Every structure is written in structure tokens, then in C-alpha cells.
């Protein structure tokens, strides 16, 4: 089971100009969870829509189990679960009616659909609201209906774009647990801004910036790559602005009238700075950092 993305490029119209959203991206997705990280506008959602066979790319190839899904999207659609970042529901239908509808579209047999729907409503804690019209659902409940519809056909490839938006901490934890259970025998691509969501469950992390894949490794390897670049510095509040200008500050904690800063930099930023343990967030910020900042850091060092 393999999704093979080869030299994928995609250009789209942005106002009156055309913009390259994805530039020659190559990636192989194997069973397990692939966390897709990147800042806004990195091209994550464009990539997701292309992989979900909604958008046709300008160039490149995508093979699912060896078959080209740009030419024959139906091959993948039968085995696909997709939760887009922004989606809507038929608000006049109840949760169960909406899931029956999506199950129908996915071509599921009635009996199987009924069993899957009951099972998913139960897993996602929606059984009590199953017969309630969707217009009465809260944001988190609608998001869980979105997750349920993606899992209806027991997909071999699950693509989820910012799935934890609108979920409370408990629901997020439950969702991570559900994904871990699902990841045993399928490919899951999980796009998010929230590093903590993928840190504990992703087998591999892909980092995108400006439409390009800039890093692909396990969370541990990424952390190791920045292990000697993470510093902690306790400083005065008044110096924060200058430090933020010169370095990448990943975290700050106020301690009395001082500030404890976590800095990511190639070189020790200050004689009082001490080395600290790196996190995935440090790695993400380091690889997606502003290049201007990188130049500044080099200059200051």
C-alpha cells in the first residue's frame, strides 16, 4: 500500500495573477501517519485537494498502488477518506441522515453503512445527537460529523486537513487516540498548524514551505537535526523586542521581572544562554523560519 507523488506542481489563479502553489514536490506515503506541517500559504491544502482527487494538478504524477490517480481518480476514491479544512453539511438533515447520504455516495451497502454509522457515532460521542438536525450542532460536533464521514468507507488512505480545529482538548486527545488505532493498516496524511497534534502520533513529518517539501523525516530525526541549535536565555523584558528581531524565539515564560526565552539559532545567541533539549516545534520553526531572520542570525553571530 503506497501513495507515490512524483514531481507534482500546481498553479492556480489568485486574483488576476497566477500563482505556483506546489513546486516539483515528490513524496512517498507509506502505512502509518504522515504529519504535514507548514505555515499558511505553504501549499498544504492545495496538496490535500489534489491528493483527494478534487483538483487536477498542473504537472506531475500521483500513483496509488501503482495506478495513476490523475488519469483514473476513481481507483483512489473508492478507498479514500477526506476531511477538508473547510466543509459544509446539509443543515436540514440530522447527523444520521447526513452520514447515510455520504455512505450512499460512497456506494456502501445499506447494512454495512448502518453498522459503520452506529459505530462511528458511538466512537465520536455523537449518538445522543444522531437524530438532531445538523443546524443545531456546535462547531465541534460538526467537525466530528466531518471526521465520521471520512471514516465511513473504512478508507485505506485518509486525508485530513486541520481536523482538530473546533475540538476541545478532550476531543482532540480522543481524536489522536482514534487516529493511532486507525494507522495500523492504512496511510493517514494529517495536515495541521498545531505541532503538538502530530508530535506524539506521526511516524513521519513532512514540512512544506512556499509550495516545496523542505524536510521529510521522523519526529525524532527532526528534533535531532536541531538538537545543537536550541538555547535558553533569561533576560530583561525590555530586551525581548531586539532578541525577537535577531533570533527565532519559540517560547517565552515570564518569571518575575525577567523573561525565560527558548531560542532556536545556529550559534549561541548570548554568553548567558544555555543549551536545552529540542522539541518538534523548535524543528518546525527552524525549518520554516523567515530567511531574513536567518541572515540576521548569521550576521549577529
Amino acid at each position, binding site marked *: 500500500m503506497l501513495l507515490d507523488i512524483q514531481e507534482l506542481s*500546481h498553479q492556480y489563479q489568485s486574483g488576476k495573477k*497566477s500563482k505556483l502553489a506546489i513546486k516539483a514536490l515528490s513524496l512517498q506515503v507509506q502505512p502509518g501517519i504522515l504529519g504535514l506541517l507548514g505555515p499558511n500559504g505553504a501549499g498544504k491544502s492545495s496538496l490535500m485537494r489534489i491528493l483527494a482527487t478534487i*483538483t487536477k494538478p498542473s504537472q506531475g504524477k500521483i500513483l496509488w498502488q501503482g495506478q495513476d490517480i490523475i488519469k483514473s481518480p476513481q481507483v483512489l476514491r473508492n478507498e479514500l477518506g477526506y476531511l*477538508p479544512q*473547510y466543509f459544509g453539511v446539509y443543515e436540514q*438533515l440530522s447527523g444520521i441522515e447526513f452520514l447515510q447520504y455520504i455512505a*450512499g455516495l460512497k456506494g456502501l451497502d445499506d447494512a454495512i453503512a448502518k453498522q459503520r454509522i452506529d459505530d462511528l457515532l458511538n466512537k465520536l460521542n455523537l449518538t445522543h445527537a444522531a437524530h438532531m438536525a445538523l443546524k443545531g450542532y456546535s462547531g465541534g460536533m460538526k467537525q466530528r460529523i466531518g471526521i465520521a464521514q471520512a471514516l465511513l468507507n473504512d478508507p485505506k488512505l485518509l486525508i485530513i486537513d486541520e481536523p482538530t480545529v473546533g475540538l476541545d482538548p478532550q476531543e482532540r486527545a480522543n481524536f489522536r487516540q482514534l487516529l493511532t488505532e486507525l494507522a495500523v493498516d492504512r496511510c493517514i496524511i494529517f495536515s495541521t498548524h498545531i505541532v503538538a497534534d502530530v508530535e506524539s502520533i506521526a511516524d513521519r513529518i513532512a514540512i512544506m514551505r512556499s509550495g516545496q517539501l523542505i524536510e521529510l523525516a521522523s519526529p525524532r530525526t527532526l528534533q535531532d537535526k536541531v538538537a545543537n541549535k536550541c538555547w535558553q536565555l533569561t533576560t530583561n523584558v525590555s530586551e525581548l523586542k531586539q532578541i525577537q528581531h535577531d533570533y527565532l524565539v519559540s517560547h517565552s515564560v515570564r518569571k518575575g521581572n525577567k523573561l525565560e526565552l527558548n531560542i532556536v539559532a545556529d550559534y549561541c545567541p548570548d554568553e548567558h544562554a544555555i543549551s536545552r533539549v529540542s522539541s518538534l516545534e523548535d524543528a518546525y520553526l527552524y525549518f520554516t523560519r523567515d530567511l531574513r531572520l536567518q541572515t540576521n542570525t548569521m550576521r549577529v553571530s
Partner: protein
Amino acid sequence: MQQVWQCIIADFKQRTRQQSFVVTLLAMSVLTLLFFPAPDAHYQTLVINGYRGIYNSAWIGICLAMLNVLFLPIICFYLVKNAIELDRQSMTSELIAATSVSKLTYLIAKWCTNVVILITIVIVMLLSSILIQLYYGESYQIDLWALLWPQLVFVLPMLLAISSIAIMFETNKWLKGGLGNMVYFFLWIGSIVQSVESISGVGALLDNLDAEVAARFPLSQETTNIGISAVNNENLVESFIWQGVEPTMLHLWGALPLLFISLCCFALAVLFFDRFSQNSVPEDQQPSWLSKLLATKKVNQLDKFFALITRHYGFTRLLRLELKLLLKGHSIYWFIGLLTLNIIQLFISKELLISIVLPISWLWCVLVISQLGQLDKQANTLELMSYSRRSIKSSCLASYFSAWILLLLASVGGVLRFAVMAEWLLLMQLCIAISFTVALAYFCGTFANTKRMFEGLYPVIWYVGPFQAALYVDFFGVNSAISWQAGMPYYFLAIAIALLTLTISAKHSR
């Protein structure tokens, strides 16, 4: 099959579990009532050689079918031309596009739902007509077959065609918006005579009825009229007992052209439908030099000028911004068209200016002013607007007058001509017409929450009023002297004020 069925059920539930659907059914019941006027009413809808049949099942069945063939194409098209749009707007399309459902299956399901919805409407009309028959009491014998078969033979094929045409329009990128609504209106205008005479098979039936009445009342030399015809008090239409006819092969053959149209339009829809994808653009696609020059450089200069002259008052600043919002995003060719129409207005004869060029110039703006009243809903900025604005009244008035200015800009050539010729009454009538048109657009947008209502309604009023110069709908004053004599400008001004007041009140209460 399972996919189609689930799709139809969900789509039908989504579209019918709304208040607007119940309102539609009620409106269609009222329309049915209007189809069958009381014997002493001032109008009749089906008069054959000066006679009408008594209200028995045979006559009501045929009459309902004929009037449905005439009027349902325009009403029903606008009712069902949102099947795919609904999925796009609600963003359910994102989920549907990633399922294994094929283009064909999805469109068949949407088409079926359209048909089921339209059939529901006709059933409600049919039930209403039974009540009407009992109410008038000219015959208490209900013959279900006589009521039903004309709907099956004449109306059903037309409903199939409307459903396909609506789907085809929705899948075509040029026709899915307001332009499609206008194009369809003119298609309908063009098809009425054709429908009555041949396509639907109603024409043959009308000929049979004509011949039958002529045979029964050979001395009668009156006209045959289908549609709305006025009746004098002294000269009421006579009635006769008509026992009806049975459907023949000829009637069934009449349905074939409609079935063919339905099939062709559906095939085109399958061809056009993009399955909610966003296509990639070729690398060399760049905006034209004309677009660059006019849209960026010249418009920016104009905008700076307007900003300068409107900066002193809060209302004028808002007015400029509302006008800018209304005009943003339209093709440069639309502006060129507007300019061309203004130039034509300067050089054409007065008669042609009033009866053709000015009405066409306004029709040119319909797709822009139809945004009034629902722009915030369409752009999902309702909440931002609600807390940002200082006064609902002033923001409503700014929206209203921005569209007012736009229509004035569309008539600058005409206004200059009227001023030079000192045609002050015409000028005043033009201002009233602008006030009425904009108030109607704002009212429709606010209450229907969709652009389609104004885009569908305005061409009808435009066609019957300014274009055909029907006195009571001629808000434009094509026959100015007669219009002033009848006091029409005062009525339209009063309607404009009433519509604007209702709109502002509705905005306030929300």
C-alpha cells in the same frame, strides 16, 4: 442505484425542509386560484372563441395543464436552478467531490430531485384545483383521470425539460450566474408562442377546442385567448359544458420534442460539469494590457478623486465605499459596455432612447445591482458588518444610493439629452424609475437572500413595462404623457418608498 437513491432522498429533504419551500407551495396554490377566476371576474385565463368551459374536472384539468405549460417554465426554472449551487455554497461539495460518486450519478440524482420537487408543486396545484372546482360548484363531480392526464401528457415532459435545462445552466460557467437567469428569461419569452403552437402538444389541443366551440356555436365570432385577458362587465364570457377528451397518440407525440430537449440538455450538463474541481491554469495566462491600463491605473486615479471629494462627511465616505464594493470584481468589458451605451444615448433619436437604449442600459446593470441586500450574506461578512456599522439606516441608505448612482451613471447620456431638451418631466420620471428599480433590487435581495429573485423578476417587469409599454407596469414612462395622466409615476414613487422602508425595517430587525 443506491447512490442515486440516497442522493435524491438527502437532497429532497434538504431542499424541502425549509420554510421557503412551504411558502412556495402556498404561492403556487394562490397562483392556481388566479388561474381559475370567478365567473364574474374582470379577467379570464382560457377563452375559446368567446366561451369558457364550466369548471368541471375536464375543463380544469386542461386549463391547468395549458397555463402550467405557459407559466411554469419561468417559475420552476428559478425554483430549481440551485441544486448544484446549494452544494457549492454549503461547501458540502468538498465532501462529495472526494467520494466515488460519478458525474453522471450525481447529476442524475440532482435531476431526479428537481423533477420530484416540481412534481410536488404540480400535485399541490392539482389538489388546489379540486378545491377550486368544489368551491365554484359548477360541477361537483370529481373525475381524477380527467384532471390528471393533461398534467402527465403536457406538463410532466415540460418539467423533465426544465430540470435538465436548470442543471445544464448550473454546470456551465457562463450560464450558472445572473447572466444565465437573464438568458433563460429571453429563451422563455421566445418559447411561449412555440410551446402553445407545437412543442408541448398543447397547440393541437387548443385547435381541437377551437373547432369544437366553432361547431357548437357557429355564430360566435370572438377570439381565442390563452393567458390573461381582460373582460368587460357588460360582456361577460359565456360558459359551456365541455366533457373533455381522451389522450391520443398525437398528444403523446407532442411530448417528444420536450423529451429530446431534456436529454440534450442533460448530456450537455454532464459534459460541462467540473465535479467541483478547480482546474489548473496555463502558465502564460496574463491579464490583458487593456485590463491593466483601465482596471489599475485609470480606476485608481478616479477612486482617489472620489475619495478627495467625499472625505468631509461620514455618509459620503460610506457612499463611495459602497459604490466601490458594488463595482469591484466586474470585467473591464462590462465597464466598456456601459460607456458605449452612454455614447449611444447621446446620438440616438429620443423615441429610441426612451423605448430601447435606456431600458437596455439598465438591463446591463441588473447583475450588479442584484447584489444589493445580500452582499454581506454572500460574502459571509454579516457579523463583521453588524458590529462595525454605526447606524443601520445610514449604511442602508448608502447601499441604496450607491446603486442609485450606478443606474444614473448608466443613463448619463440620456440625462444630458433630457436636460438639453428641457424635458423635465422625463427627467423626473427617470429619477423615479431609478428609485423604484433600486428599491425593488434591495427589497428582493434582503427578503429572498438571493440574487436570483431580482434577476428573474426584473426582466419580466422590464419586458412587460418599458419594452411592451404596458401602462400599469411601465415604470420607465415610455409613453410619458399617458403615464403622467394615469398618475403612474406617483404610484411607482410610493412603491419605491414603501419597498425601501420595508427593507430598512427588515435590516433593522435582524
